[in-house]
């Protein structure tokens, strides 16, 4: 599947259940055309990981995911030799008395355990979508290791030589910005900051993900969450709810047979919108009823 224009790409993503705004669609379009990795940054829950999933559906390519964490090593990301199998082979060879060329026999591709990064290089056409998730969690040596990979889409395995990508994988890196990434990594990537969605887009997402919520409740949820994120309330909370939370909230409201939001039910379900005790406590009855008041028409 290829998308010749930004519009067709948006359309394709939408069919995969992802509503991308125009700027994001443009960035993804460029990443595909320029064959560059795309670095997505943004608050948790704004749909960074979801984009990679949707892309894999839309492009009809396999999704390979590497979850990063502190201490992640090359052998968990790229490849590892299957030592046990190699040992067995050596013992068997010894027993049979055929120890010639044992080294060449043992370092064969089929003793290689392929991890996501290597798999992504070796996926046959149309290639893979590679998600390197939360790259900010990995440490700096790992970032340095990524440089060759992201720049050339190739890695070298000392025993086998250089492995080049059959088809360069569509690569998405995500970061919650727990730390600043290395400039060298950033230079190899296109960049997009994923914001909280506009209300229209959020409404579309809630509608698509929780169709049973009905028009009125969906609209109320989208409006409430949007107002919650806006100043001046924003400083009262440590972490604003993301799209994932609004969707989860809508589902919970359905489970509670809610037809319409009222301050009572908002306060009762605040634990779904917020993941921090202080934030749950900060959403008081007054604030909830304040936020639920019909809005004044916005001046154009």
């Amino acid at each position, binding site marked *: 599947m290829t998308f010749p224009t*930004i519009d067709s790409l948006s359309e394709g993503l939408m069919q995969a259940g992802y509503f991308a705004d*125009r*700027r*994001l669609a*443009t*960035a993804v*379009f*460029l*990443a595909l*055309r*320029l064959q560059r990795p*795309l*670095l997505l*940054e943004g608050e948790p829950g704004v749909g960074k990981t979801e984009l990679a999933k949707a892309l894999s559906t839309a492009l009809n390519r396999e999704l390979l995911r590497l979850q990063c964490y502190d*201490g992640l090593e090359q052998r968990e990301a790229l490849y590892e030799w299957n*030592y*046990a199998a190699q*040992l067995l082979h*050596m013992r068997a060879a010894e027993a049979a008395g055929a120890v010639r060329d044992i080294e060449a026999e043992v370092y064969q591709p089929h003793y290689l355990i392929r991890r996501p990064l290597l798999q992504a290089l070796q996926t046959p056409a149309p290639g893979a979508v590679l998600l390197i998730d939360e790259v900010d969690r990995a440490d700096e040596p790992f970032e340095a290791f990524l440089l060759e990979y992201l720049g050339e889409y190739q890695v070298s395995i000392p025993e086998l030589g250089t492995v080049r990508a059959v088809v360069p994988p569509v690569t998405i890196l995500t970061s919650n*910005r727990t*730390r*600043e990434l290395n*400039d060298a990594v*950033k*230079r190899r*990537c*296109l*960049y*997009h*900051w994923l914001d909280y969605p506009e209300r229209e887009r959020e409404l579309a997402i809630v509608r698509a993900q929780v169709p049973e919520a009905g028009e009125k409740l969906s609209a109320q949820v989208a409006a409430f969450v949007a107002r919650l994120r806006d100043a001046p309330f924003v*400083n009262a909370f*440590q972490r604003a709810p993301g799209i994932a939370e609004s969707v989860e909230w809508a589902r919970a409201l359905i489970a509670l047979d809610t037809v319409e939001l009222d301050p009572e039910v908002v306060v009762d379900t605040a634990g779904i919108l917020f993941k921090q005790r202080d934030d749950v406590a900060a959403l008081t009855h007054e604030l909830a009823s304040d936020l639920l008041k019909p809005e004044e028409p916005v001046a154009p």
Partner: protein
Amino acid sequence: MAGIQQLGDVRSGKLAGNITAFGRALRRAGVRTDAMRIALAAEAATLVGVESRLDLSAAMEAVMISREQDRMVFRELFDAWFRDPELANKLLAQMLPSAEGKAEPSKRRPRVREALTAPRDPARPAAVAKPDKEVEFDAAMTSSDRQRLQHADFNALGASEYRLVERLARDVTLPIPSLPSRRLRAANDAGSQHARMHWPGVLHEAARTGGEILRLPKLSRREQPLPLLVLVDVSGSMERYARLLLAFLHASTRRAGRRDVFAFGTRLTDLTPAFRLADTDAMLAAAGLAIDDFAGGTRLGSSLAELRHANARRLTGRRTLVLVISDGLDTGEPALLENELLWLKRHSRRLLWLNPLLRFEGYAPLARGASVLHRHADAMLAVHNLSALEQLASSLAALMRSGR
């Protein structure tokens, strides 16, 4: 189709020239853009076309910036550069000296404004738009005649100040000291103090060598940066320092782990949410909104009491490194200050007093508040100029090494 006329035809090469000039303007505004990105931007522009300004802006943004904090500067500059008729007027005004003086209030950030008004053509004599003067950090810290720096309002930084702060933060990173945490990781140095056996590693090694154990992999505790608690005095006597120090701290402790920041004057203001913003300008604007007692008096004692009542849990297990930035000219009750400082000291790893008044030779902490601070702080350090800031980093490291 207005966009096409202004941007020029792709084939004629005018677009590429425009993008290059735009890249240079971005750099003037403090956004890191190199030649590779500019070349990529030209390629991106041909891919998305110039019919839609939004698409073009999104494409160039994806290629040319790589930090969230640069996004708004990029967009404002893009708007100004590629369409805004205001810009055309401004450029016209620059060429006609008689048209000066019509100062229109601009909503743009000072950084963007400066980037736009900087000379576009290096060949042009400097009389039309004067080049940025290099602002020394010292100048900000003495009673400078530059009005811009004396305005200790929490406004945005100008482009030159911004570059200065960025440079300072790069050159003088505050190495937040670290301590061994509870978590373990594979040790490079097996003889290290807390090393213990790494059994899975042992088996792994053994498998590699056919059952022979040639090396004993070990685990040791990993290092974790200390949480940081910063208390900044924003009273009248500190107003010249507070803004630039906040900007500097914001930039230089970006890589620190946990970071809590409070401003105190007559009362305590939590600036931690503001410090979470990535852009230094946005941080200053948010801080300016949050602080409503700026340039008032100092009541350090009662501010610390407020900190203890409301935020004691932010001081975790005597690990926190506390920086008090103040000139010690306190108008509150010394006895209260003494009590609160004792409490704070008991609950922190180190309590450091950063005092800008140390720039005066022969300064002695004689004022009531200053003498209390002097008695209880673990150290008093200067922060009034660049070399003092550099020393701060090394003294910090030395202090952490010395036992309490």
